[in-house]
């Protein structure tokens, strides 16, 4: 008998909100939370917009020692972990620590701290050699970020398998997929899974400037993220995190837990094509979708909502539309598809987990979040992208997908556990 895995706790930090409830409020009202970069002087950069979070570590309950020790991305992940634990109602003190695991995703991990350290030790870029005496004692952890999942493990007392999944922009999907596999195979009974990234720093902005992947629509920061819109011209960089309590279904039922959704299927494929480019045909993402549906043993027509990657780059939205048509057939035209990146931006490795949270909440509330800022149709993107306004409808089964540098294409199927297989 295959062990089934469900989400019983959610914690989210996304732009425009400071917790799960507010996050869902942003999504369902179609508000956008992207703005002009305030974290540093962005005037030398091509793209000067981001989804920033006004995160107050002290108000979040972090001690000064924790704030010193933990990188910003780690703080986000820990804050989400605390929320997810409280939300799950699970008393981790009663669990066997050996049976608790952690699967955290992050694309650029401690990038922001690395840059801060760089400025100190290089005298703001003047020196090539380094005086080790000027380095933070935490510098090793910024270089080699195993500390991120380690902090989550400490937070919940996990002594089972612990890992950092760093698959670029699909990390947030893949880390949760990894956690699901740990429970299914019996390596753990409970897993804290999710992702965090805090890339709003000069070096990361410069990276995406260099390849023109981010939008230069600097005069319209609130409407700059325009997935599937005919005028889209790049994504909006953002920061964020989401963490989940994953449990085995029967254990969750036995303790009377609220079950957001079952993670019925997950699959990832690679396009083996280009580190940053996408072919038009969406072949590999379509294959991942097919494999995820297959694992969930659900027919494609059961999908009520597709939570798209929808980054707002020219190539992505076209690629993804092709992948939906290829994998879902006629149903691609019937099912609502939307991108929450239109509202909270693209937080690289974190966004996959934030989108899982949105998918689980869509099932809980029977509401499909909209694609904000979608006003001008694109003939190449001709599906129902739920423009501007959220839609109330029955949502039992959601497909969420991600696509990232390195060629990663991932897909996950979440559903109400009462939805039975075909």
């Amino acid at each position, binding site marked *: 008998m295959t062990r089934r895995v469900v989400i019983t706790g959610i914690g989210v930090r996304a732009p425009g909100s400071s917790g799960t409830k507010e996050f869902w409020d942003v999504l369902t009202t179609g508000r956008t939370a992207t703005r002009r970069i305030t974290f540093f002087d962005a005037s030398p950069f091509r793209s000067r917009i981001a989804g920033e979070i006004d995160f107050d570590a002290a108000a979040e309950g972090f001690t000064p020692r924790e704030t010193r020790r933990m990188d910003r991305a780690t703080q986000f992940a820990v804050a989400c972990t605390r929320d997810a634990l409280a939300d799950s109602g699970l008393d981790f003190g009663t669990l066997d620590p050996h049976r608790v695991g952690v699967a955290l995703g992050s694309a650029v991990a401690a990038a922001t701290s690395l840059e801060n350290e760089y400025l100190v030790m290089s005298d703001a870029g003047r020196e090539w*050699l380094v005086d080790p005496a000027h380095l933070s*004692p935490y510098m090793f952890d910024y270089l080699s970020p195993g500390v991120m999942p380690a902090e989550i493990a400490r937070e919940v007392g*996990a002594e089972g398998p612990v*890992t950092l999944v760093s698959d670029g922009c699909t990390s947030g999907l893949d880390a949760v997929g990894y956690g699901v596999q740990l429970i299914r195979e019996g390596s753990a009974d409970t897993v804290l899974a999710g992702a965090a990234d805090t890339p709003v720093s000069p070096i990361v902005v410069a990276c995406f400037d260099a390849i023109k992947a981010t939008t230069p629509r600097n005069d319209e920061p609130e409407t700059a993220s325009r997935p599937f819109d005919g005028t889209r011209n790049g994504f909006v960089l953002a920061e964020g995190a989401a963490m989940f309590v994953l449990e085995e279904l029967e254990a969750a039922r036995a303790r009377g837990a609220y079950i957001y959704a079952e993670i019925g299927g997950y699959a990832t494929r690679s396009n083996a094509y280009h580190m940053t480019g996408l072919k038009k045909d969406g072949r590999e993402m379509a294959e991942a979708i097919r494999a995820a549906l297959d694992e969930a043993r659900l027919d494609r027509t059961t999908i009520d909502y597709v939570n798209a990657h929808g980054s707002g780059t020219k190539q992505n939205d076209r690629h993804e539309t092709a992948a939906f048509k290829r994998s879902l057939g006629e149903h691609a035209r019937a099912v609502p598809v939307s991108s929450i990146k239109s509202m909270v931006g693209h937080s690289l490795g974190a966004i996959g987990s934030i989108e899982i949270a949105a998918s689980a909440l869509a099932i809980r509330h029977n509401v499909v979040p909209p694609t904000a800022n979608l006003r001008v149709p694109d003939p190449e993107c001709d599906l129902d992208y739920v423009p501007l306004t959220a839609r109330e409808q029955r949502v039992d089964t959601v497909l969420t997908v991600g696509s990232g540098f390195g060629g990663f294409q991932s897909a996950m199927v979440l559903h109400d556990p009462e939805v039975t297989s075909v």
Partner: protein
Amino acid sequence: MSSPRAVITGLGVLAPNGLGAEEYWKALLAGESGIAELSRFDTSGYPARLAGEIRDFDGAEHLPSRLMPQTDISTRYALVAADWALADAGIDAGAGIDDYDMGVITSTSQGGFDFTHREFHKLWSQGPEYVSVYESFAWFYAVNTGQISIRNGMRGPSAALVGEQAGGLDAIGHARRTVRRGTRVVLSGGVDSAFDPWGWSAQLAGGRVSTADDPERAYLPFDGAACGHVPGEGGAMLVVEDAESARERGAPRMYGEIAGYAATFDPAPGTGRPPGLRRAAELALADAQLTPSSIGAVFADAAGLPAFDAAEAQALREIFGPYGVPVTAPKALTGRMYAGGGPADIAAALFALRDRVVPATAHTTSVPDSYGLDLVLGEPRPVRADAVLVLARGRHGFNAAVVLTTV
């Protein structure tokens, strides 16, 4: 229906003491060390100067010129090790394996750090317009998986894992899991390199690097005089394959089976709970359905600091009894290669199974009696064994264990 068995059909190693799997193995048996003064930059102002550095390797001799400007040195190691592993396994475009049936799962703990240091320098000394168009992916931890996938047309389930020194074994464990879930071939392993001034300093900031200046006395695993480790670079890529698939296509060889794998995490300090290394080893043994008595040798994590060495020795004593199993640490000859260390140890362990000999732990001369450790010293030791255990630990509490058996 039983799960497919995951075997290793190809090896590619780039280590400071040997380029190529067989060369690395020969160097281990001969006790040839790759540890010397770091030559990549002027280390005179740094408290530590010894490294396990790969010399005489030019990526341009092995890779297309278009890949050179877009790759960090660590990615060149990964790509070349992958090429060698695939060639060793007899897998090429004509092997008849579907592209979705080949995945790539790698580990790195440092990413493309030398590359990114240069881009940070350009950004802050010249301006954003000078940052390379390749920086967005040459730096991140998934780069090796992506580049290997592209170079070899592998479109199956792929991933990149980070767990400091334990991450390399986790990647191989995940490759095994992926094969068992139905993918025929997963190219897996890990490499690391961060020998630019910033990467070097960051490693020193970790506080565990030896500042000794005698290459033969700097990294002394399990020695009473252990004083830290020497950082190394490089690692290994392995072809992990469904045994049936390997037989079907007539794979040239099967080095061994990944019979068991487990990962655990240490409890928080101060809880009084025992560390997780012993449990990882025991879980891996249980996973392999083997008892400790069937293990012919242990390839230890070998941190090279007394507290960590004592903890590992204790775990081994508790599992195998005092002096209960031959233990070795080939990494004394290479330095710790972080994510590359575990996969290189697996390559060495597979050769040990093949040749029935365990390489010695170099440089260490005096193991405290209290360790109760049968550390292989001086000369390689013949063993009769059909199973070996490989251990790795990562900073902050990661533990991983792999059991390898003959096929």
